[in-house]
């Protein structure tokens, strides 16, 4: 395939995308790095000089730091677990013959189109509100005390909302993967005496490995930067403050850009740890 000519053409054609992304990465990154070493307090008049590693030290030693890392991981992990588990089941179900498959698929896919802000607003006000929310009505209908979702189980509620938004994505990718499974393989397993559960565990699940990895990768990237859902629902209270949200508070609520930038650098480090970890798996799975 590759001649000298095509290789240099390839390099040339990669250039715009690479240069743009490099710029998009480097310019803000360098500025963030710069700010992170400055006492940059906009409300006090802006850049007040060199701060050394003060911002870094303050950011990690602040009592909010480790809980926020933990919250981030729980949120990402929780949503991944839910969307993948339910996504696999739903994909298997949707792969079965049924009436109105197309319509069901449309119903399932719909949450993916809803803006995060809208979905957070709708869930918060119309479903999770402990007095007027539909879930409260439902609980009362069954004679139970309504749950104050966003107070009593705030992180779980946010995980629920975010999972609702991302379930369609996981389901669709997994569905196409399920459909690509060679039916002869399932038949072979059947001939080999595997019962449905064994077929699922030994044939279907391993086949979905690659698709699951990709769901994990893409969703993680988006989930690490979840913001609107928290902003609208709890505003970071009750232990729902993720690292992203903490940075937001430092930058925009406390108006301490230096500190926030240091946080940003930490977040990049965290994201990269997660990414390297992920890409190890993905890289392996992509090669398969």
């Amino acid at each position, binding site marked *: 395939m590759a001649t000298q000519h095509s290789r240099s053409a390839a390099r040339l054609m990669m250039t715009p995308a690479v240069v743009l992304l490099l710029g998009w990465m480097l310019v803000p990154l360098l500025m963030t790095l710069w700010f992170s070493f400055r006492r940059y307090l906009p409300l006090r008049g802006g850049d007040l000089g060199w701060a050394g590693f003060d911002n870094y030290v303050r950011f990690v030693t602040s009592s909010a730091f480790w809980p926020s890392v933990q919250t981030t991981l729980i949120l990402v992990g929780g949503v991944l677990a839910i969307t993948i588990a339910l996504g696999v089941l739903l994909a298997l179900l949707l792969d079965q013959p049924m009436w109105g498959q197309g319509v069901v698929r449309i119903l399932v896919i719909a949450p993916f189109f809803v803006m995060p802000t809208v979905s957070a607003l709708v869930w918060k006000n119309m479903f999770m509100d402990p007095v007027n929310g539909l879930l409260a009505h439902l609980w009362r209908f069954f004679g139970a005390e309504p749950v104050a979702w966003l107070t009593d189980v705030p992180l779980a509620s946010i995980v629920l909302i975010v999972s609702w938004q991302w379930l369609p994505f996981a389901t669709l990718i997994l569905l196409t993967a399920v459909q690509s499974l*060679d039916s*002869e*393989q399932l*038949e*072979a*397993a*059947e*001939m*080999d*005496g*595997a*019962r449905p559960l*064994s077929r699922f565990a*030994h*044939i279907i699940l*391993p*086949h979905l*490995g690659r698709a699951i990895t990709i769901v994990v990768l893409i969703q993680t990237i988006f989930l690490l930067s979840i913001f609107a859902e928290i902003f609208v629902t709890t505003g970071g209270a009750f232990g729902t403050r993720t690292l992203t949200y903490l940075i937001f508070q430092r930058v925009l609520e406390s108006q301490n850009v230096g500190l926030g930038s240091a946080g940003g650098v930490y977040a990049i480090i965290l994201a990269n740890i997660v990414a390297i970890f992920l890409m190890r798996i993905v890289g392996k799975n992509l090669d*398969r």
Partner: protein
Amino acid sequence: MGQITLEKVTKSFGEVEVIPPLDLTIEDGEFCVFVGPSGCGKSTLLRLIAGLEDITSGAVRIDGQDASDTPPAKRGLAMVFQSYALYPHMSVRKNIAFPMRMAGIPAEEQTRRIDAAAKALNLTDYLDRRPGQLSGGQRQRVAIGRAIVREPAAFLFDEPLSNLDAALRVGMRLEISELHERLKTTMIYVTHDQVEAMTMADKIVVLRAGRIEQVGSPLELYRAPRNLFVAGFIGSPRMNLIEGGVAQQNGAHTLGIRPEHIDVVADGPWQGTVGVAEHLGSDTFLHVHDTGLAEILTVRATGDIELRHGDRVNLAPREDQLHRFGPDGLRIA
């Protein structure tokens, strides 16, 4: 034990009847080959026997027992699929072990059988590879290995060699034949390859559109095709079919003569011009035009004959090898 009997078996997909009522018995230990043009229902028939499709009516008996409602896993049959259907995420060893694992066979017994199968199939060195790291022939053998360890009543093969290249196919063909010699287990084998059918089968079943056209040993079919369809289908290159005057003189509507039964002679009853002459070294295939008998007459001459494009030839059919067919296409005895 592995006698398989189909009794008035039919199969419809929705409105379409793919298999009209069909009776067939495959004896224990027999190597039975299904051949027929694409879409004639070979795979469907195999899958009905395997239990992967439900029969619409009739009965499938295995060793006399009605198995029509038995699930595939319980029929005691093993199937080798066209795509091999190996489990890509399992090592060869795990692939072969899978049916035993499902049957709950103890680990030592599994190991024993795997080792035996691997030895028999020359797979010992590859037991820890994944299917993706194997060549076509090796995959084929793994698929067979997976079938063998179950010690099935019969093996079902659906075009198992069609994904292999020509050279490998010859080798694998022999291996399967030898396997059959050794195990003496019933085998049902679907193929659309002439040579495979002829060389491997104890019994060939020729299908067309779900109907059985002829059942018999390879040589029966070669020597006495029951009708034009079978005549044309069995033998390579195809039998030459001649209509018109010459046929009538021989008391037939259509006269069939195989390429290998026409000799190039100095002075014969038929003449023509050589079109393409294919020199294989061992044989020469002549495509002869302008004979006035059929558009092209194919002639096989043994060894290498120095004939080129455009040469005139004289041809003589072997009189005892003529096949006569009536206007209905049936053989005239």
